[in-house]
C-alpha cells in the first residue's frame, strides 16, 4: 500500500473534463514522475493533493487519511510540501527568514503567538535554517531579500523551505522549467542528493532528461486519464506514450 493513494478522481471545469477516473498509487520513498502533454491535467491533479482544488468525485488518501475537504495548511501539517511552477516565496523577507518561517510552522503548528521572543536570538531555528540554505548553496546570500534572487535561486530557496520541514511527501511542479541546461543539471544533482533523505517525491516535468535521471516510476497522463504507468524503461518504449507526445491521443 502506497503513501499516497488516488482513486477514481474526476474533475471538470464547466464542460471541460480535466481529470477522468485518475488512479495513482505512490509508494513510500519513490520518486514518482507524472508526465504528459500540455493540458493533460498534471497541475490540476497536483492541486487536488494540496487543497487548492476539490475533485468532483473520488478520493485522495495520504497515509490513511483523506486530503479532501481540509485546508492547505492542514495538509502541510500532515506532511505534504509543495514546490510551485512559479516559485512562491516571501519576496519582501530575507532568505534566512524565508526558511525560518517553515521551520517554526513545523515546530509550533499552524498558529502560535510568540510576540515577545526575538527572531535574531532564536539560535536553534536559525541554525537549522542556515544548514538547509547551505545544502542548496544559498547560505552566503542569507541576508538578501528573496525578491532580488535569480529565478533559479528562487526555486532553490523554495525547495529549501520545503525540505526544512522534513515532509513525508514532496510535490515538485516543473522544478526545472525555464532553467538553463547547467542550472537544470544542478537541480537534478540537488534533487538526487535530497533523495537520500527518504522523502517520497512526486515530480511533474516536461523535460525527459530530468524525468529519466530522477524517476523510479512514471505515470503518463493524457487528456485527463492515466494512459500508461511503469518503470522508466517500460515507459520509454511504450507506443501509446509516443503517440500522446507526438500527436493527439485518441483513445
Amino acid at each position, binding site marked *: 500500500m502506497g503513501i499516497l493513494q488516488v482513486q477514481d478522481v474526476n474533475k471538470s471545469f464547466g464542460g471541460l473534463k480535466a481529470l477522468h477516473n485518475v488512479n495513482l498509487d505512490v509508494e513510500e520513498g519513490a520518486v514518482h514522475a507524472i508526465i504528459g502533454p500540455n493540458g493533460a491535467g498534471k497541475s490540476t491533479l497536483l492541486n487536488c493533493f*494540496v487543497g487548492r482544488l476539490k475533485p468532483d468525485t473520488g478520493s485522495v488518501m495520504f497515509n490513511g487519511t483523506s486530503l479532501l475537504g481540509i*485546508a*492547505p*495548511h492542514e495538509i*502541510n*501539517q500532515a506532511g505534504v*510540501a*509543495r514546490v*510551485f511552477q512559479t516559485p*512562491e*516565496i*516571501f*519576496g*519582501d*523577507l530575507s532568505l534566512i*527568514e524565508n526558511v*525560518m*518561517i*517553515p521551520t*517554526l*510552522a*513545523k515546530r*509550533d*503548528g*499552524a*498558529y*502560535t*503567538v*510568540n*510576540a*515577545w*521572543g*526575538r*527572531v*535574531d*536570538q*532564536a539560535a536553534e531555528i536559525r541554525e537549522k535554517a542556515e544548514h538547509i540554505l547551505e545544502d542548496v548553496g544559498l547560505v552566503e546570500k542569507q*541576508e538578501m531579500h528573496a525578491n532580488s534572487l535569480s529565478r533559479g535561486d528562487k526555486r532553490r530557496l523554495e525547495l529549501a*523551505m520545503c525540505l526544512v*520541514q522534513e515532509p513525508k511527501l514532496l510535490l515538485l511542479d516543473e522544478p526545472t522549467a525555464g532553467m538553463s541546461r547547467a542550472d537544470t543539471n544542478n537541480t537534478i544533482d540537488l534533487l538526487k542528493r535530497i533523495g537520500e533523505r527518504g522523502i517520497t517525491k512526486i515530480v511533474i516535468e516536461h523535460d525527459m532528461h530530468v524525468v529519466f535521471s530522477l524517476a523510479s516510476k512514471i505515470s503518463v497522463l493524457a487528456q485527463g486519464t492515466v494512459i500508461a504507468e511503469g518503470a522508466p524503461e517500460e515507459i520509454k518504449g511504450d507506443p501509446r506514450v509516443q503517440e500522446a507526445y507526438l500527436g493527439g491521443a485518441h483513445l
Partner: protein
Amino acid sequence: MTNKITLRSDNMMMGLFALAILTMPIWLMPIGASYPDLMQKFAIFGIFAIGFNILFGLTGYLSFGHAAFLGVGSYTAVWSFKLLSMNVVPAVIFAVIVAGAFSFLIGFISLRRSGIYFSILTLAFAQMSYNLAYSVLTPITNGETGLQLAKSDPRVIDGLFVEAGAGIPSTNFFGIPMSGYSGFYFCAVLLIIGFYISLRITRSPFGMMLKAIKSNQNRMSYTGLNTRPYALTAFVISGMYAGLAGSLLAVTDPLAGAERMQWTASGEVVLMTILGGVGTLLGPMLGAVIIKYFENIFSAFNETLLNNIFSFLPEGLQEVVVSVVGLFVGEGWHLTLGILFMIIVIYLPGGLVEGAQRIRDFVGRKRQKKTSEAHQPQIAE
C-alpha cells in the same frame, strides 16, 4: 548597506525614543509646540498610529475603520468616569478591553476578505458604528450632543472614599489631575510602553509571521500556517491601541462624541502612517506629530496675521499674495496637507523615514568615498 538589527541597537533606539518623548516640552519650545494640549495630542495620536501600523504596516491589511475603535475607547472611558471613578486607571483598562472585544467582532467578519474588499468592509462597519452612535444608541452615546459628565453621576467607587465636592470632579491618576503637563506625561508614558510593545512584536516570531502574511499568503498556507488567526490577532492588537488612544482623549478632556468615529478620523491615521513611513517603527509617530502640528499651526493662521507677515510687499502684491496663501491656511489647511501628502507618496513612497535613510546613506557613501580615497589599498570597513 544594511544595518544589522540587534538587541543592542533596539535598546538604544528605545532609550532615545523615550528620551525624545519625555523631553518634548523642552525641544518643542522653539517651534511653539510645547504647550500641553498639543503634546497630549502628539502622544495620543502617536499611540493610535503605532497600533494602526501593526495591522497596516506589518500585516498589510489597510483598515479604513479604525476610528470606530477610537470612539469606542472614548465612550467606554467616559462611562467609567460616570459610573465608577474619576480615576483614569479603570477607564483606560476598560477602554482597551472593550475596544479589543469590538475589534475582534469586526475583524472576524472583515478578515474573510483581503485587499480592497477588506478595506471597504471595515469602512462600512465604522460608518455603521458612527451612525448608530449618532442616532439609535443615543441612550448610551447621548447622540449629537456627545457623552458628558454630570454632577449627578453615581461614581460608585469614588463615593466610597471621598465626599462629593461642589462641582464636577476632574479626571485624576490617584489624585494627580490629568490636565496640563501631568496629563501629557501620563500619555507619554503609555506611548513609550506602546512603542516598546510594538518594537517587541516587530522583532518577534509572531511579527515575522505578520510580515509573511503581507508578503505571500499563498506560501503561508502551503507552509502549514493558518493565516486568518494571525491576521485577526494583529487586528485586535491594533484595535486595542486605538481604544487606548480613544480613552486618553477622554482622560485629557472627558467627553466623547460620535464625530470621533467618522471616516475622516479613520483616514487621518492612514495619512499619518503613510506620511511617516508604512511598516517602520518610528514613521507612524513621526507622521502623527507632523500632521497634528500642521493642523494646529496652519489652521491658526488668519488674514490679519498673513497681512502682517507680508506687509513688506507693495500694497497690490500684498493683497494677491495674502489671498493666494490664505487658501492654504486656516480652514484650508487641508489643502496644504494634501499637497504634502502627494509629494510624499510620489517622491518618497517609504515616507519620511525613507527620506531620512536616503540622506544618511548618501552622507555615508560620501564619507566612505573620502576614506577609501585617503587610504587607497585598504578596504573601507
